[in-house]
């Protein structure tokens, strides 16, 4: 029986060795690193403390400001539609779709599990200026009656086919669409799973009371979904504020327009691995963390307490 005293620690040991070496230690070390000046090419001994200088450098760097604005723009423009589309969609599927539901949900979910690189590559061909499918489809649309001629006029005003990934005006929306496309199904699945636990009797009772479908959605479904909305929005917020892969792959960093989609995560990556400034890069990562934590906290303040209340009442 004495052996059992050791057993839990033996079961935990392998996990914790990996966790401490590759999880916790790097995290603590990165805090230390953010107060150091260091060039990795010259070895560890050249590291010296610079106090808050890295943070000050980042805070006053206009590129960092631009990257923050880009990041926030993406969080909002690709984040909000994910929920504004996924929620009604989930409600409709929940109430109306009986047959083929798995197939339909599967179609919406499949972008989420495919590789972001493969997705970015296919989108760069679809977005291609002269021969891409999207521009080809747009030029087909100009042949339609009614919308055709205004569309053509708009295209002419822009000076020909749209250079989706090469024009600073369109690059950001184009990237935002890819992000929206990728995560819509994920949110749909979250909302569907929450809808399924809502007691059907509530709808029956509401119907008997003469509540319209809209009223049922507004007064029964929405309040009961609040905890899930809060959870899903929080996930989107955290994910979008770390956005890296889609803009990094879709827009070539050699191009001037890559500035317009440089997120803070990309900025941090470039500082570290292109400029070799690991100290400032660490400081940027912690500044970004503070921003994410603050926004998540704000979201919880605005939304979360209310959501918990509704959950308990439900």
């Amino acid at each position, binding site marked *: 029986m004495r*052996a059992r005293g050791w057993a839990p620690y*033996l*079961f*935990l040991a*392998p*996990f*914790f060795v*990996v966790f401490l070496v*590759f*999880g916790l230690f*790097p*995290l603590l*070390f*990165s805090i230390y690193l953010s107060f150091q000046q260091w060039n990795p090419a010259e070895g560890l001994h050249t590291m010296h403390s610079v106090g808050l200088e890295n943070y000050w450098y980042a805070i006053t760097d206009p590129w960092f400001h631009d990257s923050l604005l880009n990041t926030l723009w993406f969080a909002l423009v690709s984040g909000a539609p994910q929920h504004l*589309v996924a929620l009604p*969609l989930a409600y409709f*599927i929940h109430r*109306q779709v009986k047959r083929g539901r*798995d197939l*339909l949900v599967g179609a*919406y979910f*499949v*972008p989420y*599990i*495919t*590789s972001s*690189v*493969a997705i970015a590559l*296919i*989108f*760069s061909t*679809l977005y291609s200026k002269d*021969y*891409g499918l999207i521009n080809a489809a747009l030029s087909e649309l100009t042949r339609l009656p009614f919308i055709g001629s205004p569309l053509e006029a708009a295209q002419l005003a822009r000076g020909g086919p749209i250079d989706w990934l090469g024009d600073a005006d369109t690059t950001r929306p184009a990237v935002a669409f890819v992000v929206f496309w990728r995560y*819509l199904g994920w949110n749909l*699945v979250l909302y569907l*799973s929450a809808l*399924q*636990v809502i*007691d*059907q009797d509530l*709808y029956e009772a509401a*119907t008997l009371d003469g509540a319209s479908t*809209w009223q049922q959605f507004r007064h029964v479904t929405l309040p009961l979904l609040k905890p*899930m909305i*809060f959870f899903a929005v929080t996930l989107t917020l955290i994910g979008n*504020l*770390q956005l*890296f*892969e889609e803009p990094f792959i879709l827009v*070539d960093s050699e191009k001037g327009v890559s500035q317009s989609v440089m997120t803070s*995560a990309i900025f*941090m990556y470039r500082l570290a*691995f292109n400029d070799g400034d690991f100290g400032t*890069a*660490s400081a940027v*990562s912690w500044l970004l*963390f503070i921003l*994410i934590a603050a926004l998540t906290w704000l979201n919880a303040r605005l939304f979360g307490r209310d959501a918990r209340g509704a*959950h308990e009442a439900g």
Partner: protein
Amino acid sequence: MKRADVMPQPLPAGRDAWPGRAWLSRPWLAWTLILAGAAVLVAPLYFTFVFATHGRTEIFNSPPPLWFGSQALSNLHLLEERLPFWRNLGMSLYVAGMTTLLNLLLCSMAGYAFAIYQFRFKRPLFALVLGSMMLPSFLHMIPSFMVMDALGWIDEPRALYVPAAASALGIFLMRQYIGSAIPRDLIDAARMDGCSEFRIFRSVVLPLLKPALGTLGLITFIASWNNFVAPLVVMRSPEHYTLPLALRSMQTPNNTEWGALMIGSAIAMLPLLVAYVLSARRLVSGLTAGAVRG
């Protein structure tokens, strides 16, 4: 949880006001939108496979090809010329496989300890793991590169699969599942029979964990297979690249062989699509486990 396909109650006619009633009484409108949406979502994947069978010039024809062509093999040859493609594929398989195996082993053991035993510091240890791993992953990027550098693991596959073996999601799922699905009496009975603690875990508990291991394994494999940032930071030589990194390295500003790239992308997506089709329900419920509680 209620079953998914509970029938919605038919609404009495004429009682409902706009807009909800109109929306639902004309479901063809919503249906059209929803099917069109699904088509838009699936289209890029479809075109990956279509373009994979066409040469570079055909892909950028006007209009572009909408149906499969016959260039798949020559695209594959081009891909083999430009990349050590099969080595990259092997590397992806190896890294994702090792990540999954190690992750399942470490997380099931640790999850078992957290679910079954009482010991000192249990709560703070669990909170430490969950808390620190919920931090954004980019915080780890620079310092873990330095750890790998210090260990001499740069350009080594183990730099990818060892750190991924300790995951908060894994330990969380395992603890939940073991706590609810493994009867304590079974463990006590095995103890009475004189089983050692480790033997109990291996012969009694592990076989019962199969469903949870399947879900976690699938999630871990997909995440590792699609991972781009970790190999980007750690891997140096092209033959050690995993598929996403290799494909991305083929994309050059001017002379990109799009047909070859598309067949590479198609091959990179195919295993996951197959796995998804075979296990969609389990995967989705696994991914959203714990989320339902809100």
